[in-house]
């Protein structure tokens, strides 16, 4: 596997110390997501009493998974890369850690040309407080165009809003044209 990068392994073992709920490596399809959502929902209903918090966790999970899904779709549809050399797979993990916190970890390939925009967006969001995030969200909602490929960058803002935490990310350069992108979101 191309993405057995040390950082990811470190993260993986760290998450395994938590109570690992679900771990998946491979193609992330609509069918897979349809199967995952009810599993997680049932689990959260058992573990999280506060329905408000349960909704937040589920919401973050959905945005994270759809982010990977859209990245993978656009990566697979890009013809400039020789895919036979790449095992096009995504990573997804969800765990429960200390003080009943939840962590969602995702990983996906990304074209290097898209890397800077994504990095800037996450850094921008990470620097914002709750009020600024809300204003940024509403501004993006009312002005941005939505494509069938993705959500106009709203997902990143929403992950930060709902998790009330900074988004942790890394880019692992793999070739001149693409990298592996990992994102971790913690919900206290």
């Amino acid at each position, binding site marked *: 596997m191309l993405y057995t990068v040390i950082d990811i392994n470190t993260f993986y073992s760290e998450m395994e110390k938590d109570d690992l709920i679900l771990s998946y490596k491979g193609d992330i399809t*609509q069918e897979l997501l349809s199967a995952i959502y009810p599993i997680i929902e049932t689990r959260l209903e058992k573990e999280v009493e506060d329905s*408000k918090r349960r909704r937040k966790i*589920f919401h973050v999970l959905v945005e994270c998974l759809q982010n990977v899904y859209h990245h993978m779709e656009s990566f697979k549809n890009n013809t400039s890369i020789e895919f036979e050399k790449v095992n096009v797979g995504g990573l997804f993990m969800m765990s429960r850690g200390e003080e009943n916190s939840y962590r969602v970890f995702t990983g996906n390939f990304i074209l290097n040309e898209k890397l800077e925009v994504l990095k800037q967006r996450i850094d921008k969001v990470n620097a914002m407080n709750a009020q600024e995030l809300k204003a940024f969200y509403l501004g993006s909602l009312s002005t941005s165009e939505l494509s069938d490929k993705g959500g106009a960058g*709203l997902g990143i803002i929403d992950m930060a809003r709902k998790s009330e935490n900074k988004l942790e990310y890394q880019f692992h350069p793999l070739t001149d044209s693409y990298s592996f992108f990992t994102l971790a979101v913690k919900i206290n």
Partner: protein
Amino acid sequence: MAENLIIEGSGKTPTIKLLFETGSIEISGKSIPENSIGFYQPVYSWIDNYAAKPSAKTEIKIQLEYFNTSSSKCLLDIFRKFEAIKKTGKSEIEVLWHYEADDEDMMEAGDDYNSLVDLTFRLIKI
């Protein structure tokens, strides 16, 4: 001839009931599809047809448990279409935004849409 549009809900998509004669619009359940535009396309088309001969009163009932960010954009587009109908003066339009008593985020979302579009919103606690 305009027809009603009814779409049964699924694990990822809401139940949609668009009734032409009574001007009764309902979107309820979960809205977390990967391709929201594709899902809401028939709704857009229906509203475009409805705009030609809307009912004197239009009631839009929204009762969502969850919606993802791409659906949030589609909802705004739907409200904007109704805003355009309102501007023609052909229909009185009211949005009934339902939220669970403990779901402040959903209440806030209703409030946010209220601030973004020129439609009458009623926030209804369930």
